[in-house]
């Protein structure tokens, strides 16, 4: 136990007492050193604990791949009807449009109400950047996750746009038209995303693959 705090006298004589800075005592150095090493140890120990909160690895790679591509039959979907399927844990609304609904999507009165009527913001593959915002005018396919805070908008008649139908988010009242385009002055900032898709045949939609835009995915859009 060193009761004397001062450095040993041999060292002090070398200074000639000129030093302006107070010499750190042996105890100060040891305390600072111990605290630094102990702190480094505690930080190292924290690494595995924080690491364990990362996403758990999937039990097998094959099972995740199966879910990325999904075929949906639209054979029994009457014109004017819609259905919701779950793709990769996300709700995807598929609507079979009547000719009136397709025409309504190009109505100038509707376009004037929309935030992004020309679909300039990348929420869809290039081949869907058109007036009906879909690959084929008669089928609209949208991921119905509100771009505001992630609730699921419902497909329903919206009073201001009776002809095209639309999506209404119950959480904060965002409204989208029949092509998933958000109206002005709504909390949601972007249109509903279009998933990567193509038609395998006339009545089968394959979700998760878009041969025309091979790099398009839910990770490459502006916001889900």
């Amino acid at each position, binding site marked *: *136990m060193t009761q004397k705090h001062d450095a040993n006298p041999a060292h002090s004589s070398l200074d000639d007492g000129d030093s302006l800075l107070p010499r750190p005592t042996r*105890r100060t150095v040891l*305390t600072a050193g*111990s605290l630094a090493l*102990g702190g480094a140890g505690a930080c190292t120990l924290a*690494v*595995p*604990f924080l*690491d*364990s*909160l*990362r996403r*758990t*690895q*999937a*039990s097998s790679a094959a099972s995740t791949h199966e879910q990325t591509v999904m075929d949906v039959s639209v054979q029994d979907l009457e014109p004017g009807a819609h259905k919701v399927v779950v793709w990769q844990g996300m709700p995807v609304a598929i609507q079979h449009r009547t000719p009136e609904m397709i025409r309504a999507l190009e109505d100038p009165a509707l376009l004037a109400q929309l935030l992004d009527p020309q679909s300039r913001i990348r929420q869809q593959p290039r081949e869907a950047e058109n007036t009906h915002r879909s690959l084929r005018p008669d089928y609209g396919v949208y991921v119905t996750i509100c771009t505001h805070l992630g609730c699921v908008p419902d497909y329903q008649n919206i009073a201001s746009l009776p002809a095209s139908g639309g999506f209404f988010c119950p959480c904060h009242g965002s409204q989208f038209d029949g092509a998933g385009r958000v109206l002005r002055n709504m909390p949601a900032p972007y249109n509903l995303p279009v998933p990567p898709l193509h038609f395998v045949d006339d009545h089968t939609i394959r979700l998760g693959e878009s041969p025309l835009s091979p790099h398009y995915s839910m990770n490459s859009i502006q916001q889900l």
Partner: protein
Amino acid sequence: MKDSTPPTGHWLDSRLPFLRPFCQHMARFPMPPVNLLWTIGACLMVAFGLMFVSGLFLSLHYQPDLSLAFDSVEAIERRVPSGWLIRSIHTGGVSLLFAALYIHVGRGLWYGSYKAPREIVWLSGLFLMLLFMTTAFAGYVLPWGQMSYWGATVITHAVEAIPGIGHGLLVYLLGEDTLGGVALHRFFILHFTLGFIIAAIVGLHILCLHGTGSSNPTLDSPHPDRTTRPFAPFYVTKDCLAVCVFLAIFTVLIFFLPGLLSKLDNIIPANPLKTPADITPEWYLAPWFAMLRAIPSRLGGLIAAASSLLVLFLLPWLDRSPRHNATYRPLVRLGMGFFFIAFITLILAGMHGATPLWVWLSRGAMLVWFLTFLVLLPLVAYRERQAAGNAPTQGETP
């Protein structure tokens, strides 16, 4: 370390008025000249802290459901990032915690730390030991492997030995007729909750200690040393040194010998139709397992195991001699020496098969256990009080 106390007029000082007196008390707490065995308490705090934190992180991934429990533990080992390390800290830590705990209790026995005025320190400490044993047992059930299932089966069926209400109590505790999903969920909640209860009682244990002060191992010697030193920095440094050594052992156990203290049978999912050939408890519960086995009566074994713990609670009143330190009490030194050998014998007996040799060794060890505490200590204490000239028994001045 005076710097650790906030200066006067500190912003916190006026808003948390107890902070400054508390820091001062901790820093200036007068310590008698205690030896290295008094650092085990700090090691226990560190071990418990690691168990608590690793347990919380494991509980984020564990599923207390009959069909998911085993797989969720496998997932922690294989798929949760760093999960194997956290589980290793938890399963290896329990052995080190109990090793330190038994040394801590043994030190209390040898140096008479149970005596007045430290009875509550002793009793709260023993209560903590019981809580740790319960928590460890409940935790061992959770992975729902073969050893978990059959260990839990055997111990819960010990309840059936209680005359009259035994079976009803067993079914009530299990929540259904057999050991199953309801019981597993209860074991999980028990294990989880006890961690917090232990934390609170550790606080009480230390509060009691700080009321009376640490015992002085030199008082009974021919040259008693009554000097005290402030806790900071002298004993902070000493405790830190001991904790470093403790953590070094911990690290070696986790990284280099992960399989040393685990049983292979427990990585087989629980099978209620097949008891493993060799069912042995973890070493830290082995003494009481050996006792259950050494008495040829179910109720008798249960009573013997419970009594072995009960006598420890009665120690402050069984040994009322003013002398503390066994080093300077020849007969107590002999008795305690035999008791420590008996305790180790019981651990070994519990971990070996029920051969006649180990059963008889356990019986001998139990005899030593009870003779030391129920006969030797009261007699020696009586003679020492006579020798002290009928002077009234008084605790050392704190």
